[in-house]
C-alpha cells in the first residue's frame, strides 16, 4: 500500500511556528507518511530578520497540486493576525474552491493554532485538532490518513 502524503502548511516570520510545523512533519514521518512542507508567503509586513530570510529561501508556497495530491492537511498559523494576511486569505479561498469542487472530501484536515474555525467550513472528511502536541498531532493525522487510504 502506498504511503499517505501529509501536507503541512504554515506561516511564520520568527521560526517559532516553523518549529511546530516541523514537529508535526516529524510525527507524520514517524507514522511512515510522506510529507510536504509549505510556507504561506509573507503579506504586507515582510520581516528582514535572519529566520524570515532563511525560510523564504527554504520553502515554497503551497500550490493547488500540493493540496489535491495530499491525503491529509495540517495547518499552522502563529496568530490570528497571520490568518488575516492576504496570502492566508488567498490560500483559504483556494481551499474553499476545492471544497466546493468536492476535492477535499476524503482528506484529513487538522490545525495547530487558531485555524480550526476557518477550516470548519471546508468539506474535509475529518477536521480535528487531535492533540495540542504537534508531534502527536502529525503522527495521529498520518495514521488516520493511512487508515482511510486502506479502507
Amino acid at each position, binding site marked *: 500500500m502506498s504511503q499517505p502524503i501529509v501536507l503541512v502548511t504554515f506561516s511564520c516570520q520568527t521560526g517559532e511556528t516553523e518549529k511546530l510545523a*516541523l514537529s508535526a*512533519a*516529524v510525527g*507524520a*514521518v*514517524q507514522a511512515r507518511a510522506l510529507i510536504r*512542507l509549505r510556507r504561506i508567503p509573507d503579506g504586507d509586513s515582510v520581516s528582514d530578520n535572519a529566520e524570515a530570510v532563511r525560510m523564504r529561501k527554504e*520553502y*515554497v508556497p503551497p500550490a493547488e497540486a500540493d493540496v489535491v495530491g495530499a491525503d491529509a492537511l495540517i495547518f499552522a498559523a502563529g496568530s490570528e493576525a497571520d490568518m488575516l494576511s492576504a496570502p492566508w486569505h488567498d490560500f483559504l479561498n483556494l481551499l474553499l474552491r476545492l471544497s466546493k469542487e468536492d476535492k477535499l472530501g476524503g482528506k484529513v484536515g487538522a490545525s495547530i493554532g487558531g485555524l480550526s474555525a476557518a477550516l470548519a467550513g471546508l468539506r474535509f472528511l475529518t477536521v480535528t485538532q487531535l492533540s495540542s502536541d504537534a508531534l502527536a498531532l502529525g503522527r495521529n493525522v498520518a495514521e488516520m490518513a493511512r487508515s482511510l487510504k486502506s479502507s
Partner: protein
Amino acid sequence: MITLRKSAERGHSNRGWLDSYFSFSFADYHDPKNMGFRALRVINDDRIQPGKGFGPHGHRDMEIITYVLDGHLLHRDSMGERHILGPNEVQTMSAGTGIVHSEFNASETEEVHSIQIWILPAREDVTPSYQQIAFSPDEKRGHLRLLAAPDGGATIIHQDARLYVTELAPKQKVRHDLAAGRAAWVQVVRGSVNLNGADLSEGDAAALTDEPEVALAGAGEHGGEILLFDLR
C-alpha cells in the same frame, strides 16, 4: 566477479539548480535492475548551484551519509542540528524513527559537489542521530580512511557495512582484503584509478563479489579518489 557500472550508465537528472547522477534508482530514475547493491541503496553524485538546495523533507529508517568534494553544504534538521559540511569531512545521519532536514549550498557564489549515500539499516526504529567528523587530507592520501562503520573509528552506522575513502596519486596503490562472503562497491568520485586490473574513470563504479581483495592504483595524469564500501 567484478561487474562494472560505467558513469554513462547511471541515471541522470538536471533540474537547473541540481545536476545529479544516480548509481541506483532514485526519484524519477527507476531501473529495476539497479535498485542497490547489498545494503547500499543510493549513491547520488550531486552538483548544487550557489544558494540552492533541498528544502525541508523527511526520512525514516535510513543511514544517510554525505561526502563533499567541493564547496560547502549547510545542513539543518528537526533535531536542532545546524552545521556546515565541507571537503575532508563526513556527515552521517541516522533517520531512524523519523527526521526532517534541509540541505543547501552554503555559498552564494560557488557550486557544491557532493556525494549522498543511503544505506539500509539492519534494524528499524533506531533513535535519530547526527554525526559529523573532519579529518586531515593526509589520512586519505595513499590510505583507506574509514568514514562510516558500525563499531567506531568513524561515524557510526546501524549496518554491517564500512565506507572508506582514498585519494591515490598516479601508480600509488592500496589494497583492502575482503573477508569470505563480503562484497565491495567501488565508486570513483574524482579522476581515474585501476581496480584489480580494470581501468575506471570519474563516475564509474564496480561491484565485487567472491573476490579476495580490492587492489586499487591511481591512474591517468592525476590519479583519483574513490569511495570503497565493504558490505555483508
